[in-house]
């Protein structure tokens, strides 16, 4: 019972981290600029302005957007499938479908973070990665752990 609650809590935490990583505006931060996958905030005369992204390789940016959104979708789907499988799976079986969905989510967020690391901000001197970027990698680790857990876990047989 405790383990089940723990796994569900961990899964929900992972979903929240993925959503924050995909939505929040902090993949790359400098003193005056804060960007993410969708737009950038620029500080001009002590007022923040939201502008479009420019000077980005357009196709890679869209690939990162797509894979991060897909990772969120698959993680949420995995939670629902897990709850459904709790009730429908015969005893002693593994939660394979949940595990596979979670594994796909893990792959997607890994793809997104990797493409972002490799292709963006390769030549810039100042600034660093923001908390959304860090959360993306942390959620990659968490989704991986959860996927392995689901693939190994068996439903309790009395």
């Amino acid at each position, binding site marked *: 019972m405790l383990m089940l609650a723990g796994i569900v809590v961990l899964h929900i935490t992972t979903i929240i981290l993925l959503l924050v990583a995909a939505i929040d505006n902090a993949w790359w931060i400098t003193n005056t600029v804060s960007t993410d996958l969708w737009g950038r905030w620029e500080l001009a005369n002590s007022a923040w302005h939201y502008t479009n992204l420019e000077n980005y390789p*357009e*196709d890679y940016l*869209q*690939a990162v*957007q*797509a*894979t991060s*959104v*897909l990772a969120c*979708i698959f993680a949420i789907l995995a939670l629902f499938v897990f709850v459904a499988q709790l009730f429908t*799976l*015969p005893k002693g*079986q*593994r939660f*394979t*479908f949940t595990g*596979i969905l979670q594994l796909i989510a893990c792959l997607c967020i890994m793809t997104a973070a990797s493409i972002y690391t490799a292709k963006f901000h390769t030549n810039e001197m100042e600034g660093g990665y923001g908390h959304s970027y860090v959360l993306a990698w942390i959620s990659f680790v968490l989704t991986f752990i959860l996927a392995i857990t689901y*693939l190994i876990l068996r439903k309790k047989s009395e």
Partner: protein
Amino acid sequence: MGRAGPMRGVWLGINQGTVCFLLLSCFEALCRVASSIPPLHFLSPPCTRTRSRVGLFLDRLLSGLRHPSFWELPAKPETMLTLLALASVVLLGIVPEQSQAIVIYTGWERHALLGSDIRLSCSFFSWRWTSEDVTFSWTYRPDGSRDSISIFHYTGGAAYVDNKGPFRDRVEFVGNPGRRDGSILIKNLDFNDNGTFTCDAKNPPDIVGRPSSVRLLVFEKVPIQAGVITGAIIGVVLGLLVLIVVIYYLMRFLVARRVFSLSVSKHGKKKKEGSQQRQIKV
């Protein structure tokens, strides 16, 4: 202005007519149901003690809909006729205010490659017949400038193109004034051609109208539109997932129903029990 085709005006008229008619007929129906049809007993007697007023109204509405006399001709044709007359007067009152303005349609934005040709379309909708004195004129305003220059004019059956300005020898008239089309073709585009092109059409005596503008953007290579690749990736992956799940459950269903031949079904029965233990190979 200028996003839909010339049928938009006619469509607006039809839309307004149908909406008015539907509203009036709904109102008429509700009034009749609430007042004339006697309520049948929809709920069982023990529930009637706790019935609220809303429940009473809903009960009468539902029983009225099931009553056969609801679907026959209305009891008072005179009310229907007066309502129809009111509606038509209202419509005729609205329509003439719109009918005297000419509506001009061009695109909103056009993208083109450096060195290519582009056809800027312009058409108009007018309640009058196309007269012989119909005129089209195109003006150009460069990006970042406030002055516009005239580059094309069609009047009296003849087209006059730019022969002094930046578009000399590059503008050609490809429209058909008889069909209300005043499109022009601009050849060999350059980066200096970025700007706003405005089309103004007049169809005497229908001359009151708002000119419509189209913005031209010239690129070295045409950029990928925002979100196309994103949407494509997401759509394909989710579609594949749905397809795989459907196929998986379909196979299980078919094997369980012994649709396949006997030899396969024996193998299939074993497969059905074992498939829950194995990973699905995707």
